[in-house]
């Protein structure tokens, strides 16, 4: 009998799917600022894809923190939360992407592939001005990606939520660099 209960947590969107991971992290400089670019891989498991295609808007959140390494603790220089929402209009057969950072933007694309490209690619996010960086110091960039359902008109959604997750949360990736 308890096996029934134990089985509940295994029903999730990411069952038997590769872990979402942050890759292609790169830092670029211009004359006054430090920019960050990265990519999210495996950010849309099959079940989530199905969920999006069924009309459920899903929000992706990228949490980025820049810290200066300290002796006892690190100094947080910048913390950014980038929210990107994807929704699919079954009638118009289009994917709508809503970006809120660095400026609000609405993009509509016809294919999921294009949508993923827009969604998972974070390009040239301004982290901090050069003036705040010190030469020879160590810095850490922490990146974490999360996905969550925005809303759903599905019946029994509360009941289903009890036994199945709608989203995911990646582990926190840490990258160190010396300026």
């Amino acid at each position, binding site marked *: 009998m308890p096996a029934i209960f*134990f089985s509940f*947590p295994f029903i999730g969107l990411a069952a038997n799917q590769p872990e979402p991971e942050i890759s292609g992290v790169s830092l670029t400089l211009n004359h006054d600022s430090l920019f960050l670019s990265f990519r999210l891989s495996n950010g849309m498991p099959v079940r989530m894809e199905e969920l999006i295609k*069924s009309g459920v808007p899903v929000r992706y959140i990228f949490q980025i923190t820049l810290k200066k390494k300290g002796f006892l603790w690190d100094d947080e220089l910048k913390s950014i939360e980038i929210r990107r929402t994807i929704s699919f209009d*079954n009638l118009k*057969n289009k994917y709508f992407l809503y970006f809120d950072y660095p400026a609000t933007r609405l993009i509509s694309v016809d294919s999921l592939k294009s949508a993923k490209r827009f969604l998972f690619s974070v390009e040239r996010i301004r982290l901090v001005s050069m003036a705040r960086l010190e030469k020879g110091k160590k810095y850490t960039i922490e990146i974490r990606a999360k996905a969550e359902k925005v809303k759903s008109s599905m019946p*029994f959604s509360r009941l289903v939520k009890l036994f199945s*997750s709608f*989203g995911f949360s990646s582990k926190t990736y840490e990258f160190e660099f010396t300026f």
Partner: protein
Amino acid sequence: MSLSSLFEQKKNRERLLAAVIVVLLVIFSVIEYKLVAFIRPLPKYSNVLIFAVININLLLILVLSFLVIRNLVKLLFEEKSHILGAKLKTKLTVAFVIVSLLPTILLFFISFQFLQTSLAYWFDIKIERSLEQAISIGRSYYRDQIKQLSSIEEVIARQIALRCNKGPTGLIEEGCIGDIFDISAVGDPAISCIRKLPINYISVLDPYGNRIWRKSWLPITEEVPEIDRQRLKGLSDKKGPLVTSLDIASGTLLRVVQPLSGPDGNLIGYIEIGRVLGQDIVSQLDEVKKGFEEYKQLKVFQTPLKTSLLSTLFLITLLIIFVSIWFALKLAKSITEPVLMLADATHRIAQGDLNFRLDTKGRDELSGLVRAFNTMTRDLKEARRKAEEASRRLLKSYSELEHRKAYIEMLIENVTAGVISLDPRGKITTINRSACQILERDPSSLIGKDYKELIKGDDFSELEKIPQELSLSGRGSIKKSFRINVGGVSKSLIISFSLLKDNKNRLLGILIVFDDLTELEKIQRLAAWREVARRIAHEIKNPLTPIQLSAQRLKRKFSNRFSSKDLEAFKRCTDTIINQTDELKKLVDEFSRFARMPAPELKKGHIRPLIEEIREIYAPLVKISAHISDDFPRLLMDREQIKRVLMNIIDNSISAGKASEIDIDCFWDSEREEAVLKIADNGKGISKKDLPKVFDPYFSRKKGGTGLGLAIVKSIIDAHDGSIEIELNKPSGVIFYIRFRTDK
């Protein structure tokens, strides 16, 4: 065990249970999290609720199992121990559990099957196909609308590019656009045709996205917002037009934006046309879209949904079972507990604890029974109180009765009269001490015997007639004098016979009351003799002296006047007169002494000198041996009178008994607390039948005796509040016992 300690134990058990639950909760959570993490890492927040639900369920199962097993074991033990109510409790529990489980399990399986079927029906391929076709129709409609608008837009764009292009500037002439859509203007048939196109909104933008002209038709009444310029940027690269939709009051405004190109293909602006899709069609499209999306979403979560629904069903069933069993146990307990309480209370009341009361707050039948039981207990207590009070009164009455009976018995026992009661058959039922003393019989030998046993011999002939005389007597009582012989002694009795009857006049027996008048008669006789003696002394003594003196004078004066023969006769006669007168004088003196017995002058004194004096007086006549014990007390006595007593007794022994030896023994009778003078002689004694008469006046077997010596002795001893008895000595003689009541 006290009530407070029981409460404390219960509290401790509850605390322990709570601690166990918390520990189990933590252990289960850790195990489950580890298991889940092993298979697939999950975000913590999404699983907290799941863990809570799982653990609550596990705990419910554990608690349920624990409670059920505990109660079952408890029931088994109670049944094995033959505890009252255990069987009833078991039967009730089993019955309630079966009654609740059967429909619940049946319902669960039916619901389970129903749910399976329903879910299978939900996700049926036909439904999916229908929904896909519906959405496909919706898409087609939408596409057609866009297509139509695009076509219209192209026609209008062509006309604008043709008519309103300013040429080298590449700008659009605003007035020209207005002319195209001026209904009142008459002109080109192509323009007229444009005016009739089914659109509700048109606007023209410059290449920078600034609106340079716009026009709207009903049902649009509100201001239509401009298109986001950012979105216009990529429009030229796109293959198709930019399509947007805007919700307005009358429905949805579907807008299509296309670039306007000049004759040489350069961008001169944008044209935006819109058509309002009616509320009804929009709603229908939305419904189709919503239905399709919901179906898709459900399909995505088909497995968890199914599991969730089945699990929910299972949980509800489990909860029902849990509640049912719990309720069954509680109900069985609620029914059996009052029964057990009643049984226990009955047992306690049977043991006499009537102060015991059962607490009840309910309003059901069992509570009514408990209340009735309490009422019964109260009534019993009241009845017992009354019974105890009655018993106390009865005991008091009985005690009083016993006291009265004892008092009456004591009275009867101590009354100097003899009291005997006979039953109707003439059997002796009671006899008092005086009767036994008078009759000289042992009471045990008489109780239950026939009344004829009371008196034996000839004396009974008189008694035999009594019942007949009593029955003939109208008063029911008669009184008679009897003289009977008891132990060889004649006793004078006055006997009263009374019929005993109850208040219903039923005969209960005969009451015989009698008095021994022998002593009284003696006293009366003594008094009479004293009176006689006094009169004789008075009447006879006075003439005796003149008679004697006259006889002496006659003898002296006339003795010389007679011849020798007559003289002898004369002298003999006068001597006889003188001697007899002397005798008479002595007799009269004796009488006088007896009659004038003075009151004793009592003084404390020892008996020894008196006895020594007596011994000296009688030493020439008789041998007197005396023994006085050391503890013999001093007597309160009239010395002269006691001396007279001793002298009379010794005189009597010498003269009547011809005794040669007399023993005087003085000792203290510690048992009766009396000082006793025992005077025994070895004379010839006296016949047994004369013994009671020896103290009677004028009773004498001695020739020439006055018969007053021992009567005087008796009088003196009586005056000293003492007693005197006589018995025969062995081998001969008599023994006098003189007893003085005195302090030692």
